[in-house]
């Protein structure tokens, strides 16, 4: 996803000199072409995310489309008040980009587990929050946020994820992508959990259950219609995210369902509000937290039966 983002941004920036890319001293071996070919549109802010964020706001208020870039929690939680006051309150055209969403940097320790930031970013007034599922979505999401006026946050995975979508998709901010049709249950995923959702749907199909799979790449504004349709048309809804079950996709969907008056079985599948006691690869930590296919399947079966 990182490569998809950077390639797309590079292409956009070459055609639009208003685009400026600020990094918090990260991007070794991948950002050099941008820095060398578009030096007037590149800023290495150093390891200073508060300053980077407010500089981006100041540049955006001077006519730029400013992107801030760092990993894990550094471009979000580290500088949260600068995002709230300097970016959001001024409706500044700043795009916050985080590489390493969820457990992408699982072995690096809790400091590098970005597992609450989607919820925190959702709460920021006027912030659009996006977590693409694969490189195909990441390319389209990059174009969409750059074209969208105002504050945006995009959570990327890392490099090397496979494409989940088989071909071109219709990507619009605030609109789910329906990846698979089904009437029995709905699996709504955000970010890279789409791959797991599709895998679980295949397993369910073998057991005779058809799962609708929705890629909720935009957490805010949430595609409420798609959630309500799932509640009306399928027997149960499950949300899948590599994020705390508080405040992220599960929380957002729960808010919609609770106010809808619709009776539907519903379960949030995500992380407890706790630190992971062990480090490990993304795959290991997914398994430990029941976010692998087998773990998700167990939860689904527990709710709807086999």
């Amino acid at each position: 996803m990182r490569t998809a983002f950077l390639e797309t941004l590079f292409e956009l920036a070459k055609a639009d000199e208003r685009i400026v890319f600020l990094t918090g001293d990260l991007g070794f071996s991948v950002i050099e072409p941008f820095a060398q070919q578009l030096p007037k549109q590149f800023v290495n802010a150093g390891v200073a995310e508060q300053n980077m964020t407010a500089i981006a706001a100041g540049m955006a208020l001077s006519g730029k489309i400013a992107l801030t870039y760092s990993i894990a929690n550094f471009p979000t939680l580290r500088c949260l008040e600068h995002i709230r006051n300097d970016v959001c309150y001024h409706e500044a055209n700043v795009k916050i980009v985080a590489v390493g969403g969820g457990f992408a940097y699982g072995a690096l320790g809790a400091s590098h587990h970005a597992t609450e930031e989607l919820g925190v970013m959702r709460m920021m007034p006027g912030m659009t929050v996006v977590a693409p599922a694969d490189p195909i979505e990441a390319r389209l999401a990059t174009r969409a946020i750059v074209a969208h006026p105002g504050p945006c946050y995009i959570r990327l995975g890392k490099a090397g994820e496979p494409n989940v979508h088989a071909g071109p998709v219709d990507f619009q901010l605030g609109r789910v992508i329906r990846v698979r049709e089904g009437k029995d249950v709905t699996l709504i995923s955000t970010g890279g959990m789409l791959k797991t959702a599709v895998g679980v749907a295949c397993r369910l199909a073998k057991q005779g259950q058809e799962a609708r799979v929705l890629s909720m790449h935009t957490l805010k504004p949430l595609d409420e219609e798609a959630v309500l349709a799932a509640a009306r048309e399928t027997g149960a809804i499950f949300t899948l995210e590599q994020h705390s079950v508080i405040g992220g996709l599960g929380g957002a969907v729960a808010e919609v369902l609770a106010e809808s008056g619709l009776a539907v079985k519903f379960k949030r599948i995500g992380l407890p509000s706790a630190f992971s006691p062990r480090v490990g690869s993304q795959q290991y930590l997914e398994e430990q937290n029941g976010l692998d296919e087998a773990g998700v399947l167990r939860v689904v079966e527990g709710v709807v039966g086999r």
Partner: protein
Amino acid sequence: MPVDTSTLPSTTELARRIRRHSVLMTSRANASHIGSSLSMADLLAVLYGEFLRFDPQQPEWPERDRFILSKGHGCAALYAVLAETGYFPVERLETFYQDGSPLAGHSTHKDVAGVEVSTGSLGHGLSLGTGMALAGKRDGKAYRVGCLLSDGECDEGSTWEPALFAPHHQLDNLVAIVDYNKIQSFGTVKEVLDLDPLADKWRAFGWGVREIDGHDHAAIREAFAAVPFVAGRPSCIVAHTIKGKGVSYMENQLLWHYRAPRGADLETALREIDCEIGEEVP
């Protein structure tokens, strides 16, 4: 087109009006921070009266100089100078702090022409200004950016991030002014978190630095005229000021970081401010 500063009152008169409005505004609102507004009144008067290029008829004029009040709690003085230079009617100052008013107790840009950015949380303004200065440099623009900081604000780590950044990027279109009145929220700067040697700190970060008497208009004028102090570097003016300057019983008193002048205190304050120079503010 920028405002013709020769049509504005003298800086001495402008400073008197800023002080008078600030006292009346905080009194009416029973608001804090009068001491902080009074300590920076002379700096604002000279900046707006003689140096900044701005157009009140066109607040978003792209070529305007940007002024950022990073010490947003001193906003009564900022709103006052904006009203006096024509951004909005002076009568609007009466709505300061009032229900439904855009004139908040920390400088707020929403629906207030001339306020470049909203502040109030300390340690934000210099970074915002640095971003504007950087954008100006990259675009080959001639505008300059001024940012007024409090001394207490220099406690914030986020003040020193742009302090490090701006010289590295040779932002000689950026001026930081520290209103060094030496009293912060809970005591003197020396007691709370000593900043001395403050000028040396900025110098060590790579800024061109001057220390001036922040109430001496000639000294302020001379400093602003000499910017940038060092070619290719941002400039920092450490303005030694007196908290509550212009009202004898407020000067250097922590109490007046909080208390609003009422009754006899108000009368005394206005009388002392008006003694500075001639006529009443209409």
